[in-house]
């Protein structure tokens, strides 16, 4: 499963001459900043921005937070037809940015994308953190169908303490929002892939599966099954947290990721 590439080739020392105030300065640039790729769920990029700031500031890391094409008013091209296509696009993004030792962190639908990225076996990716992810099918632990739920009902399922739910913006208009449409396009009507569990069985990457104890959309039993589907995983249950730990208990989530193994 692993791909060996010449050591140092994925983030080489870049040599260039930069002209400042008329002087050419020959510069060798060695960048070993730790990169993270953060993948948001169906709630959109806003559910990740606060945690992105926390992660970058606290660990002095490089934190990459894309908006999935089709979310937040962006365009989803027809070539991105499903979760696998999106995962391939993100591996391409890592190539474009020329980073390595990338840790992928994905929440909810972003967790599914993280799993699909891990399966693409890129030497640039050294591990994944799946936070209340979806995508697999688990007997006896069905994902709650959230279609058409009012924001208050959704908040009740998503948060340990719904009072911590951010106030949803007044949307106006009728019908599903563009974000919901994009999510449906990527994830399909069942929001799962019956082949995913089986495909994960061959994965050779470390994956940290983290779950909010009070997740009402995919319960902790589902999370344990996610970890069990991965040959090299650790499962962490976060108390007093729901489906969006990065929103509800960001400090605890950061601690779980960074202190793992201490």
């Amino acid at each position, binding site marked *: 499963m692993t791909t060996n590439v010449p050591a140092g080739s994925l983030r080489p020392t870049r040599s260039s001459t930069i002209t400042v105030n008329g002087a050419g300065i020959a510069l060798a640039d060695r960048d070993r900043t730790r990169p993270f790729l953060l993948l948001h769920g169906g709630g959109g990029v806003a559910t990740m921005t606060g945690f992105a700031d926390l992660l970058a500031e606290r660990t002095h890391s490089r934190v990459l937070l894309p908006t999935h094409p089709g979310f937040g008013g962006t365009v989803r091209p027809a070539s991105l037809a499903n979760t696998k296509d999106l995962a391939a696009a993100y591996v391409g993004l890592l190539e474009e940015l020329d980073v390595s030792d990338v840790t992928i962190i994905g929440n909810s639908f972003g967790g599914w994308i993280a799993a699909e990225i891990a399966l693409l076996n890129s030497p640039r990716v050294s591990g994944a953190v799946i936070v209340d992810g979806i995508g697999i099918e688990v007997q006896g632990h069905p994902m709650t169908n959230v279609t058409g739920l009012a924001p208050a009902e959704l908040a009740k399922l998503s948060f340990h303490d719904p009072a911590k739910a951010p106030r949803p913006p007044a949307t106006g208009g009728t019908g599903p929002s563009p974000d919901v449409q994009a999510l449906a396009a990527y994830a399909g009507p069942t929001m799962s892939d019956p082949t995913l569990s089986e495909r994960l069985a061959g994965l050779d990457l*470390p994956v940290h599966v983290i779950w909010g104890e009070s997740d009402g959309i995919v319960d902790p039993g589902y999370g344990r099954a996610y970890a069990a589907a991965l040959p090299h995983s650790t499962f962490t249950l976060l108390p007093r947290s729901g489906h969006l730990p990065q929103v509800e208990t960001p400090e605890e989530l950061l601690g779980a990721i960074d202190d793992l*193994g201490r």
Partner: protein
Amino acid sequence: MTTPLTVTRIAHASQLITLGDLRVLTDPWFTQNATYYPGEPVVRTVETLGPLNALVISHEHYDHCDLDALVAGGFDLSTPLFGPGTVTALAATKGFTNLHTIEAWETARVGDLTVTATPGKHGVHEVTFVIAAHGRTVFFGGDSLHIPELDQIPERFDHIDLAILPVNGLCIRPAGLRQVVMDAEQAADLTAVLKPTLAVPHHYAFHSGFLGDRMITKGDRDPRHYTDALGRIAPEINTRIVLPGVEVTVP
């Protein structure tokens, strides 16, 4: 006149040792992957290694036995390769033709070069080595644990000029933090027994990636822990922490 003896770390446990005109490469590693990072520059490519008189390989783990990189880089597969049976069997499947299988306390000779396998213990079968030629002697510790059998080396060999020892005390987290590599203190204890003219630590910069360091391995990445321990236990022994690419001449 004493034959010149030098050592240059290429990275990790890949050491280019010269004993006079003989050039020996230990535990080759030239690539990286998702959970194996040298953590330091790799200062030679396979293509720029130049001709070698021997390859000496302690065990078959990827970061010590990157035969695929050698093959891909056009390495001369008829170069004599010394190692335990686990390594030579693997090397045979990769097309290496000049294989010398040695287990603990067994010796093989090619020309003026004598390689003796000495005991080792790791997550998989491993041997360490005493490499000798022209009256100069090197102990190569691979990434072994310090086991009592290693303390017999001084009874079996004349003076050791250079000892190269692992120091990161690597532990495997999924195996209940089972230790598979000697740590700084244990390496210093072994150094005090071997009494080399010069001791050089290696196998400490390696890492497993951000999550891999937290989920797979736990290792000490600071070689000063070894030199500090040696300063306490056997201050009369010279030691040097060297960066990859720095050629060290052993007095």
